[in-house]
């Protein structure tokens, strides 16, 4: 299967086409195309159950029968490769009879419980029975029935995962779920068991179907065998309408449909909207179930205003008047630069731009940033990290790359769609996958090489790569020139030792990078969250220059949030790209003279009481900033704090005024994903309660300050269009950068490196309000290797005390299947466990000690 | 002062009061009502005198029939109290104004002079014979001694009735203005549609 021609259309040189006739029409298709795909390409509908465009064909259901001349029997079109001169009939009487027989055969054991079945109304079997089927059955025996439970409590539905309910009676054994789980997600928690009449799909023994993509299994099930709790028994499908939305939690912006009901103003589910450029029709569960926070019961309903130390409900007019009054007071007393603005990068373009203009024109301060969960941000717009973050990236190119490197990135947790792309490339094309991480991550199972370096030695491992390539002359000598002088590590072995990795492995990767035809190099959040990311970014710039990756592929730090790239493009950072800044100046008519402060610096200034007021929109710095105490102290010292959020959070509890923020599903907004692709999320429902979109809130505050932002929405759009048109991509530096590799400090008292990030089923602070996701992971945990757990004498679920010099938390242990070094990972998404309180913003690697909590 | 005497006095007073009020009322209906009061009181007096038949007849004929007829006529003509009635009335001549009372007084004198009143009204019922004023006696008197006056009175009443009819007919002799005959609804266009 090395040359699976299905996706290999990039080689037109070979005359690999065949011509066949389908229903009297001649068609020419690439060699290897199946008859079914050829017919579908012509717009001929052939009914299927088991076929899926992104999976391999198995021909399990036989529904796609076609008649092919000179073949003795009906042929299964999804498993029949098109050959020259084939004459295919898809609509002959024989085919119709065949389909009818298949439907009857499937219905022999399929219960007719459509009224209770949630698939009713969108069920493939239902539709095809209507179209091709019969209205009576010739089978007069009892249907096969799978049940669970004792006689009196018999039930058909079994819960095989936190969210998935299986009804084996309805299953028609198309194996789509099992195949998708295996081929697309690389999971083996679902399988087919037994033989013959009692064949059943079920969870693997002793396991639950809880992989982060399990929702897709429900969506692709052609019948109602797999249903999920989210949608189960909520509403009938024909009563709903769909809003075309996008994922608000990931950087790729997977396309989704929000199924809503207009009268009730409710969203009932979220499904994938296949976009082959971005998501291939698979969405992660965090996307699928995360929308539930929109419908959460504890949304903020009205503005809150602090009176006598207590937050009380207030009207919008009252709250806005207070905001305007207090901002003016602070402004008058302390001066322009004393007001800071933080905005979350999951808000839409218009909100971001409005806030940008509000801060820079209405307030007149340069203090605006969206990167609020990163410590020690570079204070220079031209830093290597900024360059790396601004580089272009194309998701679909991952598919076609033959060398894929993920560096310092837990892809499953951070970029689920790109994670699936890597799996796709690996499974269908046998692409070479290399992961270079401070701890082993999920996709190490498909990696040709999984390099685990010493936590904190980010730049050392990249230096080792560069030096190995230079020493072994893998690239042109001209490129090597000038490199070694800039690096602090004198040799590849030196660097590999500093990084704690095997030089041979590094050499393999370097050779692959040097020889790869198409390379994708992705740097992730573990780099970005590192306090000393700048050195690693510089090392990556050197790497890019050395291997000339840009000419053979792409290299970028992937944008983490749904509109991170949009925020960059709209100049929502202290140091916008020069082209963007030029457009902004033109649009604003002025540029604030004050110092540009990053989010990180703003917090520092707040701690010094140099910034006295702040506006925080949609963000929760206390929970997410990697030094909880620091962030809280900073915000507590403020004279006046306005927070817009959808929920009451740790940050809103400090606020003087809390304004309810509308969620992504409640207004139409544009989002720019990591590729720079602008996508629109349509409003599904009206803003719930009294919440308002961020741009409206910002405009209202500006109006209350008597400095309106825009004359009209049209003005806003034209201004924004000009800015978005500006090129924000920063060029690589002209020469090699100096990389000072510092040794990683160790500590006897706190031996274990701690990594804090998102759980695979969560993202940020909002998904905590999505009940389905809480069913997957409801509380924080300490993920660690089995060896470490054994050394601590703890088992899965035992509580451990995780202590750092500044704090401690008690969390249950979760033994990881892939982490094999003594590190610990704790998700930050759960407000009940303030894991960020363990972190110190200046630490290169946060280290903790773990002790078992006695029962 | 027996009970009978008291009753007589009260009845007499009511009768006189009713008669007086009757002629003093401007409202014709009120006049009729006072007349009824007077008549009932008189009937009581008759009964006390033993003339039960007369008393009953008084009520049946006068109160029951004739005054109802009066009321009917008054109501039909809708004669309400009219303040302009007296103002617009022609003043009587001085002769009439003096002559009528004088004549009445003279007449009264002769009557009082001629008639022998009983010495005392007490015990009236006891002093008359049993059948005094009963139907039988009245009938005998009426159809023997007073036969001709009685018949003449009847003729007189007949004449009066005929005269009244003649007078009444003259007023309504003109042709009616509204057509009562269904065939006469001629020139009026029937543009109204039932329902």
């Amino acid at each position: 299967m090395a040359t699976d021609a299905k996706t290999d259309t990039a080689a037109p040189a070979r005359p690999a086409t065949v011509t066949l006739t389908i229903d009297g029409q001649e068609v020419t298709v690439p060699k290897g195309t199946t008859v079914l795909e050829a017919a579908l390409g012509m717009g001929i509908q052939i009914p299927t159950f088991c076929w899926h465009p992104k999976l391999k064909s198995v021909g399990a259901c036989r529904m796609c029968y076609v008649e092919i001349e000179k073949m003795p029997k009906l042929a299964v079109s999804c498993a029949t490769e098109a050959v020259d001169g084939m004459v295919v009939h898809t609509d002959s009487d024989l085919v119709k009879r065949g389909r009818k027989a298949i439907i009857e055969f499937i219905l022999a054991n399929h219960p007719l419980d459509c009224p209770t079945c949630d698939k009713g109304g969108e069920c493939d079997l239902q539709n095809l029975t209507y179209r091709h089927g019969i209205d009576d059955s010739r089978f007069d025996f009892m249907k096969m029935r799978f049940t669970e439970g004792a006689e009196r409590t018999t039930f058909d539905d079994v819960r095989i995962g936190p969210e998935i309910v299986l009804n084996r009676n309805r299953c028609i054994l198309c194996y789509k779920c099992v195949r998708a789980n295996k081929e697309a997600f690389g999971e083996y928690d679902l399988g087919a068991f037994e033989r013959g009449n009692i064949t059943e799909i079920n969870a693997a023994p002793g396991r639950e179907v809880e992989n982060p993509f399990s929702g897709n299994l429900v969506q692709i099930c052609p019948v109602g065998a797999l249903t999920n709790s989210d949608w189960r028994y909520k509403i009938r499908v024909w009563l709903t309408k769909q809003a075309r939305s996008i994922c608000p939690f990931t950087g790729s912006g997977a396309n989704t449909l929000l199924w809503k009901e207009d009268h009730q103003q409710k969203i009932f589910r979220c499904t994938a909207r296949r976009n082959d450029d971005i998501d291939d029709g698979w969405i992660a569960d965090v996307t699928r179930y995360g929308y539930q926070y929109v419908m959460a019961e504890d949304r903020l309903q009205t503005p809150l205003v602090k009176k006598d130390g207590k937050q009380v409900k207030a009207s919008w007019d009252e709250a806005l008047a207070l905001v305007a009054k207090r901002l003016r007071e602070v402004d008058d007393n302390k001066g322009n630069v004393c007001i800071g603005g933080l905005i979350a990068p999951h808000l839409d373009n218009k909100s971001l731009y409005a806030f940008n203009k509000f801060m820079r024109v209405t307030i007149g301060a340069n203090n605006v940033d969206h990167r609020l969960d990163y410590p020690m941000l570079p204070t220079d717009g031209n830093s290597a990290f900024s360059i790396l973050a601004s580089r272009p990236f194309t998701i679909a190119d991952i598919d076609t790359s033959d060398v894929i490197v993920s560096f310092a990135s837990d892809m499953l947790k951070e970029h689920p769609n790109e994670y699936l792309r890597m799996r796709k490339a690996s499974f269908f094309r046998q692409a070479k996958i290399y992961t270079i991480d401070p701890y082993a991550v999920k996709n190490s199972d498909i990696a040709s090489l999984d390099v685990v370096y010493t936590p904190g030695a980010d730049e050392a491992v990249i230096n080792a790569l560069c030096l190995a390539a230079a020493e072994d002359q893998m690239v042109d000598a001209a490129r090597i020139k000038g490199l070694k002088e800039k690096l602090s590590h004198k040799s590849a072995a030196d660097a590999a030792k500093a990084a704690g990795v095997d030089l041979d492995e590094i050499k393999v990767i370097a050779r692959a990078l040097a020889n790869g035809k198409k390379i994708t190099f992705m740097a992730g959040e573990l780099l970005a969250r590192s306090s000393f990311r700048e050195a690693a970014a510089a090392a990556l710039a050197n790497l890019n220059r050395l291997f000339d990756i840009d000419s053979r592929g792409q290299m970028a730090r992937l944008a983490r949030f749904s509109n991170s790239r949009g925020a960059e493009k709209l100049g929502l950072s202290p140091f916008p790209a020069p082209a963007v800044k030029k457009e902004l100046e033109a649009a604003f008519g002025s540029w604030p003279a004050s110092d540009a402060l990053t989010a990180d610096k703003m917090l520092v200034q707040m701690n010094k009481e140099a910034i006295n007021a702040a506006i925080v929109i949609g963000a929760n710095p206390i929970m997410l900033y990697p030094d909880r105490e620091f962030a809280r102290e900073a915000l507590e010292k403020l004279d006046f704090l306005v927070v817009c959020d959808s929920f009451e959070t740790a940050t809103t509890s400090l606020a003087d005024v809390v304004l309810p923020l509308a969620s992504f599903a409640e207004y139409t907004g544009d989002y720019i994903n990591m590729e720079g692709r602008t996508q629109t999320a349509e409003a599904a429902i009206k803003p719930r309660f009294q919440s308002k979109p961020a741009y409206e809130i910002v405009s209202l505050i500006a109006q209350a300050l008597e400095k309106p932002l825009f004359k009209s929405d049209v003005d806003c759009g034209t201004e924004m269009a000009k800015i978005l048109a500006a090129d924000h991509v920063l060029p690589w530096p002209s020469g090699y950068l100096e990389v000072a590799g510092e040794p990683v400090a160790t500590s006897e008292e706190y031996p274990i490196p701690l990594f804090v990030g998102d759980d695979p089923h969560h993202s940020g602070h909002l998904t905590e309000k999505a009940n389905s996701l809480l069913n997957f992971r409801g509380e924080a945990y300490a993920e660690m290797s089995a060896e470490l757990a054994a050394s601590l004498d703890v088992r899965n679920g035992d509580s451990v005390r995780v202590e750092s010099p500044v704090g401690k938390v008690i969390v249950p242990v979760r033994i990881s299947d892939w982490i094999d070094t003594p590190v610990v990972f704790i998700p930050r998404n759960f407000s009940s466990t303030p894991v960020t309180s363990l972190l110190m913003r200046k630490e290169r690697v946060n280290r903790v000690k773990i002790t078992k909590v006695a029962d | 002062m027996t009970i009978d005497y008291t009753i007589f006095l009260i009845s007499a007073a009511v009768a006189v009061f009713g008669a007086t009020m009757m002629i003093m009322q401007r409202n014709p209906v009120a006049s009729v009502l006072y007349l009824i009061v007077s008549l009932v009181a008189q009937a009581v007096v008759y009964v006390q005198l033993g003339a039960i038949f007369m008393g009953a007849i008084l009520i049946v004929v006068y109160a029951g029939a004739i005054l109802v007829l009066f009321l009917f006529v008054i109501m039909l003509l809708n004669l309400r109290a009219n303040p302009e009635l007296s103002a617009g009335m022609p003043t009587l001549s001085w002769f009439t104004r003096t002559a009528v009372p004088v004549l009445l007084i003279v007449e009264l004198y002769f009557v009082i002079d001629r008639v022998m009143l009983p010495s005392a009204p007490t015990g009236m019922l006891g002093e008359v014979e049993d059948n005094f004023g009963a139907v039988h006696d009245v009938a005998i008197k009426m159809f023997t001694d007073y036969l001709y006056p009685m018949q003449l009175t009847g003729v007189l009443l007949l004449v009066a009735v005929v005269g009244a009819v003649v007078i009444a007919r003259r007023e309504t002799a003109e042709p009616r203005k509204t057509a009562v005959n269904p065939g006469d609804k001629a020139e009026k266009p029937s543009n109204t549609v039932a329902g």
Partner: protein
Amino acid sequence: MLEMILISSAKVIAVILAVLTGCAYATYMERKVVAYMQHRIGPSYAGPYGLLQPLADAVKLAFKEDIVPDGVERITYAIAPIASFVPAMLIFAVVPFSSDFTFFGYDIPGVISDLNIGVLYVLAMTSLGIYGIVLAGWSSPSKYSLMGGIRSSAQMISYEISYGLSIVGILIIGNSLSLTDIVSQQASESWLFFGNWYIVKQPLGFLLYLVCAIAETNRAPFDLPEAESELVGGYHTEYSSMRFSMFFIAEYAYMIGVATVGTTLFLGGWNGPFLPPIVWFVIKVFMFMFFYIWLRATFPRFRYDQLMQFGWKVLFPLALLNTMGTAAWVVLFG
């Protein structure tokens, strides 16, 4: 003497109570009988078979607001119901409801007052009853009431003559105006117990009495004074509450009154075999009342001109004929 007064008072109270109760249940009977004749059920909610319906009606009427409209002749308006009610009750003073009976050793006559001109007294009372109606119609500031009053007075005048004349036949034969005498004349010891009843001797007189009595009491089909379809409520349109109920009671009291008088005059009064006299009397009155109601259920209302023509051109000559015929009979054969 005192005993006589007490006995008389007791009789008066008993008769008044009986009449008032009779009036109440006459309404019930009327509604029920008319309902059955019209294929309906009639009152059935208050009490078993709706027997407490009259009580409920009475309570309802008593507790209604007493509305006096603007523009009424206040005194007349107030007098009218009383003027209607009192004569109706007075009729029963002369009606013999039973033979003389002995009660705790006292001989008690079956009549409150045996007036020797009883018939005339009855005529007088029925003719006085019209005043209530006429005055009610006149004093109410309403054209419906006035029309009711006018119609009533005209009807009264027209039918009273025939009413009186219809009885004259009996008077000629019986040679007495006392109702007690008339009843005793109708007694019979033979097996043909109704042989002496005046209905046998005066059939035409009875018919005339029947018709005129109905007309006198403003009952259907002679209920023009209160013709609902034309005059809303007729003379009592503007009355409510107790004042209205007095009219109501008066109407039914008149009905019972003429029924008792008719029974006394034509149907032999309390005479009858086997049963006690009072029971016979009640049975006969009941039948009379039933006929009243039956008539209402059967006949439509007269038109006004029909009413007048019938009264003057049919009843009056017939009554004269009856009188003269009876007189001739008595002179020739008596």
